[in-house]
């Protein structure tokens, strides 16, 4: 089922939890809502589920406006951040509860519960109470309870946030596979950008109620629309350097006290056209900078962090700190003078005032 939001708003008194959201989730798509804590992600999910009524705007399932449809008629399965299992019921009764309410016959209920429980790998735990399960098992029970209705839309509210790091990585791939196998339209909420990028077909980045960008993981990573998205996506985060854009005899230069970079002509032209002033921010990801001891921009090593596969070097460029990936064979000590080379194809430029990317075509 397709989900469409049109000018969707939700206000709690003076708090604008969701503000003018326009979004389209295609049939069978796996979409992640990504944003910092308190940005309105859960509110959006609860509006899809029908628990909250939108203050303004519309939600469509396919062509139908469902603003006033009650939760139980929406064919939705939802897994809550806290799992929200019913502590007084056994695992079996937890999973069977939606069927019980639909008055599905006993025998069929039993079969369906067993089937979905086996699929989730909790077939052995049906007699236990939720308090006797580990976090990972509780999460599977919650998922089983959401799936047993055979919903047309699956809503997941940070389902992995209560799991330990290893289990989270395992469940990440399992959830992705499960979604692809079942083909259920899924909206997944997370504040972990890695989770969003690895699992979702498309990611909607939300900040303080606004949709910042809605695109595939690649696009999001390589062509962020604005400063917030660029800074939020990526770990370690992108480097920002304050520069001014200058033009001298047809050449475009990014300059500040510590560096000077010449831009390709078309990039320079675009930046010049889109910018409101010459003061701009240069963004470049740590993996798009190479470090060496011979030539490039002059800097000083601040700290070195080995990450196993490569090492993360923080260097000081004037007042700003820049993070760079280097190969493990690179040897550097604190205080060493090193030189940086930027991969000019990968740089991003942002307007300081509007915070918008200068390299995207205006829309």
């Amino acid at each position, binding site marked *: 089922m397709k989900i469409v939001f049109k000018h969707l708003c939700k206000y709690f008194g003076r708090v604008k939890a969701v503000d003018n959201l326009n979004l389209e989730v295609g049939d069978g798509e796996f979409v992640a809502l990504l944003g910092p804590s308190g940005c309105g992600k859960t509110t959006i999910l*609860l509006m899809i*589920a*029908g*628990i909250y009524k939108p203050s303004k705007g519309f939600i469509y399932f396919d062509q139908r406006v469902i603003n006033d449809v009650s*939760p*139980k008629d*929406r064919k*939705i*399965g*939802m897994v*809550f*951040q*806290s*799992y*929200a*299992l*019913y*502590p*007084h019921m056994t695992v079996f009764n937890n999973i069977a*509860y*939606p069927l019980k*309410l*639909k008055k599905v016959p006993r025998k069929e209920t039993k079969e369906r519960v067993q089937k979905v429980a086996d699929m989730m790998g909790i077939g052995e735990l049906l007699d236990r*109470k*939720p*308090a006797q*399960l580990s*976090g990972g098992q*509780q999460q599977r029970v919650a998922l089983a*309870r959401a799936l047993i*209705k055979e919903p047309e839309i699956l809503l997941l509210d940070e389902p992995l946030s*209560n799991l330990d790091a290893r289990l989270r990585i395992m469940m990440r791939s399992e959830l992705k596979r499960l979604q692809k196998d079942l083909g259920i339209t899924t909206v997944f909420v997370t504040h972990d950008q890695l989770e969003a990028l690895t699992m979702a077909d498309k990611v909607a980045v939300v900040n303080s109620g606004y949709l910042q960008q809605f695109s595939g993981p690649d696009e999001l990573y390589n062509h962020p629309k604005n400063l917030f998205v660029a800074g939020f996506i990526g770990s370690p985060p992108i480097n920002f350097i304050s520069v001014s854009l200058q033009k001298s005899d047809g050449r475009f230069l990014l300059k500040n006290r510590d560096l000077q970079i010449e831009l390709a002509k078309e990039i320079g032209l675009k930046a010049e056209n889109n910018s409101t002033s010459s003061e701009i921010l240069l963004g470049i990801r740590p993996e798009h900078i190479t470090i060496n001891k011979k030539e490039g921009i002059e800097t000083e090593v601040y700290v070195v962090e080995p990450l196993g596969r490569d090492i993360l070097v923080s260097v000081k460029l004037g007042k700003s700190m820049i993070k760079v990936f280097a190969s493990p064979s690179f040897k550097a000590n604190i205080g060493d003078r090193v030189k940086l080379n930027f991969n000019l194809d990968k740089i991003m430029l942002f307007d300081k005032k509007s915070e918008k990317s200068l390299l995207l075509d205006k829309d």
Partner: protein
Amino acid sequence: MRLPQKSRAALAYLVLIVPSALIVLGFLWLFITSFSTRTEGLRSLGWTLRNWSFLWESPFGPQYPSIWWVTLNTLVMSLVMTLIVVVVSSMTAYALSRMKFTGRKSFLSLTLILHAFPSVTLLIPIYFVLIWVSKIPVIGRGVPLLGGLGYNTIGGVALVMVAFQLPFGIWVMKGFFDNISWDMERSALIDGASRFRVWWQIMMPNIKPGIAALSIFSFITAWNAYLIPLTFTAGRAGKSAVLSLYLQNFISESVMTEWNAVAAVGLFQLIPVVIFFLFTQQVLLNIYGGGKKGGV
């Protein structure tokens, strides 16, 4: 300065034992006295069962109701009152805790004010209300067991007790509902439950300790009530007499008070309370012992 583990435990025990011992001593005296002709401190000066004779013969003559009739009255009154208080409080508290409606805030403060209101000042107006209710056919005074809802009926007394107990009950239950996560309720709504079902199948089982606590409180309040039954029934001689009024029979102006018999009736009055407490406490302990931890 920190005491070593052992002496700290000993100190704690000492603090607990001294007041407990005083209370136990009181009960011990009550017990011994009720089986003695006379006592000297805790020492019995001769054992007897005569103090308990109220169980099989009426000590005051046939115009007074028997102990068994009075006990039945008290039990019916207490159970009816407890049941209504628990059901009404938990439904009201659920609405106050979970639903948005106009007047919710004022309702909450009103219940709090009512709880603090001195009930004595209401006795006379309520008396007139009950007299008026008595005149309504059937529900006034024609219901078996309860008598009815009017003056000098068990039902009427229970109803007044309910009214006085409700504000407290609502606040207690609201506290318990407030502590249940919204997610559980939302989850049930998405699973297809109606609001009523959510209350009954999801919320109520999770506030069993609250229900048990409120039941104990209400039951004991009703069982020991004196002022309200005294005001709204025909007193110890009437057909709607309760145990606290029965006790009054022994303390009259004309004859010397038989303290040994008073002790026996007092002990008798205590028995159901202990049973009820043990029963509900089991529920309390089960819930807490069952472990609700684990962030469910």
